[in-house]
């Protein structure tokens, strides 16, 4: 069987889509959480700065037309209450600098209120500046007292780092969770497919009944095509079997009739030359019949090895049965078939094919054995293999040394025009190989052929 050409995998595609989806959502989550948290952190920092600035502003009063400011201790100390921060401030009356850090950047326009915030670089560090102002009546008339308070971003950055890692964790966590769920989803989506595959591959070779288990609606067309295909296959298989059977009838029945008639004729013919002719005829008919039978046998073997059934076959029982079945024939030929050893030995395979192989071998052995000789059959099992050995006391295999015999049946029956045993051994070889075993032919030193079928265990 050849593996189907695959392109992609539904499960993988589903998984990739879901993972991409999870990654995108995870990334979005990360960005959103981070930006929201940043905003909140920024706001809380701004609130502290504003509180500081306002507390300074609140400490200002006009005495005798002059502004005096009693800078509250907490105005600056609150700025590094959690983390150590550098703090700066500037107090200005209109554009006149009063106290603090003169170069502290001034705010732009006051938009929508009297408190504005800005980010700037100051004295080599990034700072956040809150500015607030209030109008006072002084000697010079109405004037805006403006307080700017600035703070470095150590704590802010630390918070941002934490926020970043938390939102990263949230994003990654979401992604991991989604990935796990994606795997589950992908698996559960493809599970019906796997179930269908399992239910189809669990079937025996001859089970071509339609798949009856319920499947998701998306798979219904596939399953109905499959069922359709299987029913056509079933039909075609039974047609092949019928054809083989029909062919056997068509070819062999006339041969049987002719042979019987020839035999009857032989009884009535007296002249030796006529008798010889009829004998020749019968022998030729037998040869044809045997050849036809073996060709059909071969067809049957090929057919069955393509659809090898997988049942437990007890080779010892099979060998015993085969020998018993051949008992009438062996008696007829006065050849004794001896079972010398029978170890219990079971393999998985097709009993019909295996019996066909044994019958062919024993048939050969009987055919080549001389009268009053014997054929020995043994089934042996050891740790590594099962060996079925059939040996006779006949003439043995010709040309065994050159390996031609093996070669001949390995590449096809009638390469050299010898039909009979060649095809028989071809059948045996095909059956044995279909069961993962090997066929070994040898000649015994004392004369006679020895055929060994060995099936490795495990």
């Amino acid at each position, binding site marked *: 069987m050849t593996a189907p050409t695959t392109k992609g995998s539904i499960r993988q595609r589903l998984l990739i889509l879901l993972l991409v989806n999870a990654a995108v959502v995870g990334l979005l989550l990360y960005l959103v959480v981070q930006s929201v948290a940043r905003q909140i952190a920024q706001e809380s920092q701004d609130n502290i700065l504003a509180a500081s600035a306002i507390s300074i502003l609140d400490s200002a009063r006009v005495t005798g037309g002059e502004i005096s*400011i*009693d800078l509250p*201790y907490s*105005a600056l100390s609150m700025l590094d209450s959690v983390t150590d*921060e550098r703090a700066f401030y500037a107090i200005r009356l209109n554009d006149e600098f*009063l106290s603090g850090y003169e170069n502290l950047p001034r705010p732009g326009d006051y938009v929508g209120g009297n408190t504005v915030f800005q980010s700037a670089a100051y004295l080599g560090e990034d700072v956040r500046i809150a500015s607030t102002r209030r109008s006072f009546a002084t000697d010079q008339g109405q004037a805006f007292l403006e307080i700017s308070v600035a703070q470095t971003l150590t704590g802010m950055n630390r918070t941002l780092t934490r926020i970043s890692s938390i939102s990263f964790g949230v994003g990654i966590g979401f992604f991991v969770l989604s990935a796990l769920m994606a795997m589950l989803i992908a698996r559960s989506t493809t599970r019906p497919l796997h179930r269908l595959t399992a239910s189809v591959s669990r079937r025996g070779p001859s089970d071509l009944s339609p798949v009856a288990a319920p499947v998701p609606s998306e798979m219904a067309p596939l399953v109905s095509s499959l069922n359709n295909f299987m029913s056509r296959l079933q039909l075609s298989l039974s047609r092949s079997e019928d054809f083989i059977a029909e062919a056997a009838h068509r070819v062999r029945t006339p041969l049987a009739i002719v042979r019987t008639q020839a035999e009857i004729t032989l009884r009535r013919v007296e002249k030796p030359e006529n008798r010889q002719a009829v004998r020749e005829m019968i022998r030729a008919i037998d040869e044809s019949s045997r050849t036809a039978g073996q060709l059909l046998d071969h067809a049957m073997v090929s057919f069955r090895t393509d659809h090898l059934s997988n049942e437990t076959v007890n080779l010892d029982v099979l060998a015993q049965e085969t020998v018993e079945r051949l008992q009438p024939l062996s008696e007829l030929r006065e050849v004794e078939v001896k079972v010398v050893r029978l170890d219990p030995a079971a393999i998985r395979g097709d009993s019909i094919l295996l019996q066909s192989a044994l019958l062919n071998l024993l048939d050969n052995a009987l055919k080549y054995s001389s009268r009053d000789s014997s054929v020995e059959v043994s089934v042996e099992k050891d740790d590594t293999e099962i060996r079925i050995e059939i040996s006779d006391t006949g003439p043995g295999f010709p040309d065994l040394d050159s390996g031609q015999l093996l070669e001949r049946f390995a590449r096809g029956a009638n390469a050299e025009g010898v039909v009979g045993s060649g095809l028989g051994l071809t059948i045996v070889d095909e059956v044995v190989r279909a069961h993962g075993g090997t066929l070994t032919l040898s000649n015994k030193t004392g004369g006679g052929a020895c055929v060994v079928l060995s099936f490795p265990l495990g």
Partner: protein
Amino acid sequence: MRSLIFSLGLMCLSTLSNAFEAEDHAVFGDEDAGQVLRIISTADIAFFKPMIQSYLSDHPDVAVDYTVASSSELMRALYEEDLSFDLAISSAMDLQTKLANDGLAQRHSSSQTQNLPDWAVWNEMVFAFTQEPAAFVISNKAFEGLPLPENRQQLINILRQNPEIFRGRVGTYDIRQSGSGYLFATQDARASDTYWRLTEVIGTLDPKLYCCTADMIDDVVSGELAIAYNVLASYAEQSAQSDAFTIILPSDFAIVMLRTVLIPTSSEKPELAAGFLDFVLSQTFPRGTSPLLQSTMLDDANQNALHRIRLGPGLLVYLDQFKNRSFIAEWESAILQD
């Protein structure tokens, strides 16, 4: 940086000359040593000598150039004249904080600094290595027959009840001259109203005003002063004539000043400076074997009454010209009742 003009009203009073003035100078170790560590400090040479010598015994290839200056001169050297020093050691926490806040200190982080308690480090720039409480120093002779004051209220009572003993014999910092004095006063005032009442009482007794702790102790020893208020207890403890006086940590609250060190940005050998800094800190924390200024009184004192001055931008508040001006004005009106 130099263009930054920060209004240091207090400082301007005492330092009118242009160039920074060193009070003392010494070099420790081999003059020809490969590396010279330049330290500017408000602490006397004698005060810091043991630490330096201990350091040099481990680092023979280093020489230490030690310059003593007042805290305002130190500020001027670094802030205005941009002179190069590798370490600045000062008891003026507010000025040290300002140096750091205004970007004139380098950050430093090491395993040693990681172990410091939070109060002892600010922004990885300013590191505290001593704790020095402000105390009453009382002349034993003058107080014969009188109860010893344990807190400010008791001190007020004793001063009020015995003006004949104390007139002209009470000493305290002139906060217009002394950075430490200003720091103690502002922190005192922040902590309790008692400070102003005490200052007023002292003001009625024609007090003597000092620039330095050492002078006050000397005058107590000589009997010229009956009591000195807000004296660095660590100095007093080290005094040779310590049996002439009694040191009292006020039980209501005792301001604890931290002597701090920082590495100025002008340092030419920041690594060497960092090494020395770590050495100093290792002598001090967690339970230092520092040869200097371990006030034994601190260990015995009620920890809850110790008022450690917190490093941080809060200290900048009293450096603000408005704040400074109004505080000095208030102080003057209380202490100078002529």
